[in-house]
């Protein structure tokens, strides 16, 4: 009985915090149907206009597409690089290890506007490469590597030390052991790292704004839209769609998980 009480108390708190987190988002969803360019009470009427305009807003959708594209590949690259480094850190002792860890963690510590400017100088004045989604993505990889490294290496540190040996004992090569045992075992951490990296990349503005080329990412484009209040509701509609989409995805995967469990 006591346990049950405690459970509902914790649960209550969780949902209160969730409500707190979702409150502004729910508000955005409401405003996305409000027949006014102003995000302001009182509501003036129901409309689907913003959604209609959203589907015609080529540049906005293109920037969304760009952001998804950059987010996916930069997170994937960061996950691959960061995971490799995490395995190395976890598995080997080598000179300069602490320096490597320190430097890899540093991007977390430096304001991204600074990284953005530094990268802009690097790209244009040192390497003379054109700004593009690639240059944005590379910047995102820089800030995402530490995230991946932190998440994955702590997961690896939690494993019994001899999993790799067990795999090699059974005939797997070193790389085979990494691919068939260490990586699958770290999968939850890899997914968490990828998700966190994607989330970071998807909402990254301060750095991206400097290294973005002719293709804007969503946050860069959205900030530029702040000059045009009448475009704000369209952006809000997009935000609402993204949110509803992600929540639906969560519930679908939860359903799938449950279905998988029932088997």
């Amino acid at each position, binding site marked *: 009985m006591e346990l049950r009480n405690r459970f509902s108390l914790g649960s209550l708190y969780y949902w209160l915090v969730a409500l707190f987190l979702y409150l502004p988002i729910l508000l955005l969803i409401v405003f996305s149907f409000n027949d006014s360019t102003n995000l302001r009470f009182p509501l003036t009427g129901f409309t689907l206009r913003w959604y209609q305009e959203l589907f015609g807003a080529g540049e906005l959708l293109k920037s969304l597409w760009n952001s998804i594209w950059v987010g996916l590949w930069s997170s994937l690259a960061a996950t691959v690089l960061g995971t490799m480094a995490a395995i190395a850190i976890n598995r080997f002792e080598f000179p300069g290890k602490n320096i490597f860890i320190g430097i890899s963690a540093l991007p977390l510590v*430096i304001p991204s*506007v*600074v990284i953005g400017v530094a990268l802009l100088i690097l790209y244009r004045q040192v390497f003379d490469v054109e700004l593009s989604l690639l240059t944005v993505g590379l910047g995102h990889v820089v800030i995402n590597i530490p995230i991946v490294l932190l998440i994955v290496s*702590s997961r690896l540190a939690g494993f019994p030390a001899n999993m790799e040996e067990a795999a090699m004992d059974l005939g797997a090569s070193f790389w085979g052991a990494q691919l068939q045992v260490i990586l699958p075992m770290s999968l939850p951490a890899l997914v968490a790292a990828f998700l966190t990296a994607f*989330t970071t990349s998807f*909402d990254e503005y301060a750095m991206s704004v400097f290294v973005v080329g002719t293709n804007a990412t969503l946050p860069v484009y959205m900030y530029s839209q702040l000059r045009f209040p009448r475009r704000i509701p369209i952006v809000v509609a997009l935000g609402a769609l993204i949110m509803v989409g992600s929540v639906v995805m969560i519930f679908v995967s939860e359903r799938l998980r449950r279905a998988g469990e029932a088997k």
Partner: protein
Amino acid sequence: MEERRRLSILITPSAIFMLVLFVLPLLIMVVYTFRQGSFGPTSRIFTLAHYHDFLSDRALQGLLWRSVVQSFWISLISVCLAYPVAYHLSFQAGERKMTLLTIIIVTAWVSFLLRILAWKVLLGGSGAIASLAQSLGLSEEGMPFLIYSQEAVNLTLIYVWIPFVALPIFAGLERIDPSLHEAAYDLGCSRPEAFVRVTLPLSLPGVVAGFLFVFIPTVGEYVTPSLVGGTTGVMFGNIVRDQFVRALNWPLGSLMSLAMLIVVLIPLVIAARLFKFSDLAGL
């Protein structure tokens, strides 16, 4: 040797990547602090003037200190608010925990900017909270409540950070062996005692990680203060950003970033000395 080859295959890609795309730009930034101007002929003049300017600017240093203190409190409160969420997820939510965690995390998929705009609607003069405050007699008519102030910055940042703090704390809690709680009860601890004496100390690395996750970027924060901070909410990050994007005084901006970096690194180094790196990792 075989081991060395494996190590180099694993580490070289990220090492080269970080070297070229991070260390190199960082060094360029350091070089910039000695330049007189940002571009053109003035950028080729070596000067220590920016160091002199910054070191003699007490007001600016004061702002840096205030931003650090403010970030400290924001981080602390975020940690306190997120801890019970992480605790609930880790110990009470059972198999739904990953789903519940994701529900919290995906709020970050809606642009930061939009969520801040929504907060402005809530907190602004005609917003829901102002109306409530007005009807309760807490605020005069049409007065924006809680917005355009340092408190608004704090509230908004705490809102933004809760999911990101919950994550490392959750990870820290997940690593605690449940039998340790049982051991604590067994040794006569009441539940709160068991929490204070066993769970909390063991989850401390996750808590510290969560704290740093918030603290570090908050010191350099500029978007939130510029949107909801008003005149009292200005943070050091705003001034740094101004050097880069308005004054185009990149040398001074670089120098201010370095100063910020050093201020932020101090707690990081302390934390790294107190806790093992992997414990700080989160998840």
